């Protein structure tokens, strides 16, 4: 199934099990969400649990905080991650702090789902990747799946997490490819990354829509007799230090890939963790392949903005030079 279908399956299965889950957001009801991720839920669970909201992002997050404090599990949708900033204060001031502030009496087990990233010829504000904002915010967790199967598993885990989880879904992946997704439940522990291709010579770290490019680059590099290990971060925060440090201690060379702007992005933290954990094993500077430090251009130029297989390969080769 596609990633859209896999996410829908996760919601459907978990809502069936747990009547404290409320899905809310703009157009999540009869319309099924602008990307159809909530398709059919309104029919199956009714308007009390699948709640169309007024056009107000701060309200979507703020109401979720209230519902969560009460004991429900809101799974809210922000229509595009570029419109989550209207609710930044609700996330930073409250979602991230409710457990902390009340010393555990009230908690905030909510999931904020939001489509992110470029590549679907969308209008302005519909193609941003700014996961670093949330990753830098103590009290939040930040998760990004890279395909249908792990999307389903991660979303289930996010819905069961006792704390607030920001869940970014790559629009470019929504219908890009299909994967078999078992009917039976799967979860992926939040905070755990995965080696999706083992290798000895160099480590490519990626997530979300960039993972496919990393894998393609690894396949190409193989032809040049370079064995690249590929890590799928899956969770951006908390970062799985152990896995990536281990890999770099082995390979000594690394590339981190994301489509978000390069500076002050997730790549910087990955580099720092690797510097801290694997400095004496590094053979070359870790390369960052990222979006440029500009606003992602309107869609006719976005291809040149987004990282691609070539850029990853160039960076990989650069780490191999020395």
């Amino acid at each position, binding site marked *: 199934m596609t990633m859209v279908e896999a996410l829908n399956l996760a919601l459907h299965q978990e809502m069936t099990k747990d009547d404290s889950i409320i899905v809310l957001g703009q157009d999540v009801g009869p319309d099924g969400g602008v990307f159809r991720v909530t398709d059919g839920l309104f029919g199956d669970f009714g308007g009390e649990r699948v709640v169309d909201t007024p056009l107000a992002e701060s309200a979507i997050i703020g109401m979720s905080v209230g519902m969560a404090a009460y004991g429900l599990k809101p799974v809210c949708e922000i229509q595009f991650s570029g419109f989550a900033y209207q609710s930044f204060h609700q996330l930073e001031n409250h979602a991230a702090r409710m457990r902390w502030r009340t010393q555990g009496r009230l908690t905030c087990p909510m999931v904020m789902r939001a489509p992110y990233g470029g590549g679907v010829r969308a209008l302005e504000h519909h193609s941003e990747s700014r996961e670093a904002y949330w990753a830098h915010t103590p009290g939040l967790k930040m998760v990004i799946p890279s395909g249908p199967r792990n999307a389903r598993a991660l979303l289930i885990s996010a819905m069961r997490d006792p704390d607030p989880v920001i869940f970014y879904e790559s629009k470019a992946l929504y219908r890009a490819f299909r994967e078999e997704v078992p009917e039976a439940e799967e979860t992926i522990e939040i905070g755990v990354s995965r080696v999706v291709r083992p290798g000895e010579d160099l480590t490519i770290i990626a997530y979300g829509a960039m993972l496919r490019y990393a894998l393609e680059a690894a396949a190409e590099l193989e032809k040049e007799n370079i064995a690249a290990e590929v890590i799928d971060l899956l969770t951006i925060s908390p970062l799985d230090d152990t896995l990536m440090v281990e890999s770099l201690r082995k390979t000594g060379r690394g590339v981190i890939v994301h489509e978000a702007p390069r500076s002050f992005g997730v790549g910087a933290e990955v580099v720092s963790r690797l510097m801290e954990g694997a400095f004496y094993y590094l053979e070359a500077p870790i390369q960052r392949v990222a979006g*440029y430090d500009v606003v992602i*251009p309107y869609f006719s130029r976005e291809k040149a903005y987004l990282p691609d297989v070539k850029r990853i390969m160039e960076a990989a080769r650069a780490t191999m030079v020395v």
Partner: protein
Amino acid sequence: MPRIQISIPNTVDYLSILDESGEVDSSLEPEISEEQYLNLYKAMLLGRRFDERMLDLQRQGRIGTFPPVKGQEAAQIGSVFQLKPSDWFVPSFRETSAEIVRGRSLESVLLYYNGYNEGTKLEPNQNDMPLAIPVSTQVIHATGIGFAAKYRKTDEVVMCYFGDGATSEGDFHEGLNCAAVYQTPVIFVCQNNQWAISIPLRQQTRSETIAQKALAYGMPGIQVDGNDVLAVYVAAQEAVQRARSGGGPTLIECVTYRVMMHTTADDPKRYRKDDEVEIWRKKDPISRFEKYLHNKKVLTSSLQKDLEAEVLEKIQTAVGNAEEQMKKLGDPLDMFSHLYQVLPSHIQLQKQELKRRLEVEEGG
């Protein structure tokens, strides 16, 4: 120590002049020159035909996603016609018809919906804001521009557009509240087209009208038949006069309807009945205005034909021009332009990297 009903100084009117059958309440009819009538009509017609053409282009894959205007021409044209060039125009994303009146070229619209940043380029001296996609954010800009115009002691006014859905955002509230506090010369034009994507008005707010939301700000509000270009014209005229003479802001609710899909990516069959759309099709703003102009003998069948031809010709030329232009545009290095006045050095390096990559690719 009483219990009494509070009387609220501001009242909220409803205004309709030209009904859907083309009948007019002559006691309310504005004074409009024949030329102006024709200008209004031409602008509405151009808006309509361009919208239709864009839908074709989109279906043919020649432009990307766009939000059709169809059915909202009276609300847009009746109001924007009250602006002088020196006034400020602050659109949302569905004001293509009004933007064209303000001088935006059809080419620029086509570039925009083909994903070229050149499509939001503004001309020197154009006192317009570019379209704003994040709903309601532009409402506050209008207040700020109005503040500045007042500070500079000009008589400029600001006209700001948004939809019914936009009224739920915090920014709507903050923008109108501040405009009232500072008595800035802003006309807030809500195109209440009954839908915000799949959300009908009654799920957007429990308030009976949007116009009455003005009372929360101590501001005059008026609801008009938004498919009646005369009513919109009159309400906007009153509001502009008030603003220009120092009387502060006004909220105008134009009751209209989104006859088409939200954007070309949307499928309204998922959430609304065709019957509803049919009812509103009969209230079409252009055909009732045509009847009225025919009755007034301002429009004749032959003139109407000529105007149609003129409009289609203009659109045809623009489509050709835009497609020519696009062949020449698209240098990806332009993504580094205009972000800052002076590009910081680390981004210059990124630009050089991209340049090198592009050269390699061309070479390879």
